[in-house]
């Protein structure tokens, strides 16, 4: 019983990463973050960098895998400024690299 409960809990809490390719202009970040805040769904971490000629950016979002994730992903995919979305079921290593600065 306890083990089951623990397994369930860790599944709930498990970190996942969404990796997005987006157009790089002011406002894109608010569009994306708004989809989370509106659903009372916390973004645990954000890393965003321009890529190539700077017309687009790559964005990594660290989230806790939970029931809201599926709906948020579908909403993210609808944004015209989001060009691609990849779901990594685990935390992406970029966060451990960046994590050094908060250690």
């Amino acid at each position, binding site marked *: 019983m306890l083990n089951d409960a623990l397994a369930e809990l860790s599944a709930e809490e498990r970190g996942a990463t969404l990796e997005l390719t987006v157009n790089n*202009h*002011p406002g894109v970040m608010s569009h994306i973050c*708004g989809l989370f805040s*509106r659903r009372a769904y916390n973004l645990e971490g954000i890393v965003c960098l321009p890529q190539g000629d700077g017309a687009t950016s790559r964005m990594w979002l660290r989230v806790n895998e939970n029931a809201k994730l599926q*709906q948020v992903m*579908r*909403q993210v*995919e*609808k944004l*015209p400024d989001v060009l691609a979305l990849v779901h990594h079921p685990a935390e992406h290593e970029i966060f451990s690299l960046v994590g050094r600065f908060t250690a």
Partner: protein
Amino acid sequence: MYEMTGARAIIGLLERQGIDTIAGIPGGANLPLYDALRDSRTIRHVLCRHEQGAGFLAQGIARSTGQAAVCFATSGPGATNILTAIADAYLDSIPLVCITGQVPTSLIGTDAFQEVDIYGLSIPITKHNYLVRSADDLLRILPEAFTLALSGRPGPVLIDVPKDIQTATIRFARWPEPGCRREVPAADGEAIAQAARLIDAAERPILCLGGGIIHGGASDLARELAEKCSLPTTMTLMGLGAMPADHPLALGMLGMHAARSTNMALQECDLFIAAGARFDDRATGKLVEFCPGAGIVHMDIDASEVSKLKTATVGLVGDVRHTLAALLPLVRRRSRGAWRHTTAMLRRMYPMTLPEATVPERPYGLILKVAELLDEEAVVVTDVGKHQMWTAQVYPFSRPRQLLTSGGLGTMGFGLPTAIGAALAMPQRPVVLFTGDGSLQMNLQELATAVEQRANVKILVMNNRSLGLVRQQQRLFYNERHIACDFQLDVDFCTIARGYGIPSFNAPAGCDLDSLLRQVFAVPGPCLVNVLVGREEEVYPMVPPGAANSEMLGGFYAERCTC
């Protein structure tokens, strides 16, 4: 090579887009745009009296035609005023392009006079929005805005244009192609085949048509499916008209104010086929008890709707028209005699109305009298409240886009400006507005617009001197502890209408409604009729908010109900 200002380019792009009417109000930050509009030979501007009115007027055009409509507002207060109409369009998936003026780029972020971050404010209530940062971008943004507003699940798009972008000069060799609706294919073929098998195997299926059927122009195919498979068919508020009310398979609206028989049939169904409907809580009641034991087939163009609230047995993501066309040849023709007998019996046992409720002195009677005098050409607009639900319950809607009503947002004040927009878009059709004394006063100022535009709108005020639907909720769920629902002032709407130059009539109890309404409908142009409605007239049945649809309060034959 063309050379012109950004403002002139915007007007040119709108003209090429086929826009012939724009509703709005000018102000400092959109004066260049208005200056350019003055030279347009094909666009008529409709000056409203409040930006919310302009937003809803544009909605009236969009809702009645299915085409994207345009509204203008200036920066700051103009833009914030129009937000409610945009949110309303968002929730009902109405294609709208709203163009707001903004302070010059150099002043953005300085708390300049009439500066409001309308881009930020409109993010959660638009399909997409733009803050234009270079005049050259207009050539891309305008067509794209129309494409987005019209494609997939339609919705509003906002374009915020700083004043210096409107006055900047741009040069270009060719006009871009106008934006247009992008075709979306049918759902996946295997999923459609699976849905066909579920439909064939179901003994007690119910088809539910939502607003998506109307946006997708799919009501004819939906009806074919219903007839081929003998599917009793219910409609959401937004779907009313998708199947004619007098069709033998039509069950009317479902949900909070449905006929008892409809919600009872849903309790028994073994397959719920939702087409362009999104399981709104007003339609489903307490979700876990909605259609208990039924499989779910869900067709929607928006993938994020499928299984959002209720897990679909089969999800059909795609254009509902194409999906239905692909589904039709795969399903078996069935007569489902026993099930149709059950639904017909429920309808006979629990009728929506009784003769004593349909006398002209009572709300249903008024609504049915209007329906009797008008044909299916008429456009029916409502505001929000009891009068809206009464209309949805009994008006015999017979075609898509016949009913224009604020479903998702339920915005009081929607009615009058939307009715004017519909009248301007469809000058050959009579437009009738059922409104309440509360709702009408939320955009009353648009009576002026109705007169100036000679809009053929007949305004029927179902006047109960109260915020009726609120009053009813206090009565039912707060032990009759009434507060803030009864108006102290008995407004003389006829005098007000006359002040705007609108002919008006009082319809006291016992008057000859038939001849009064005939007289009113015979004369083109705006007219207001003030009809007294008893404060105690309630909308029944009613499912308490949050309760299961099987818990219906009130209404005829409530005592017979065992569910």
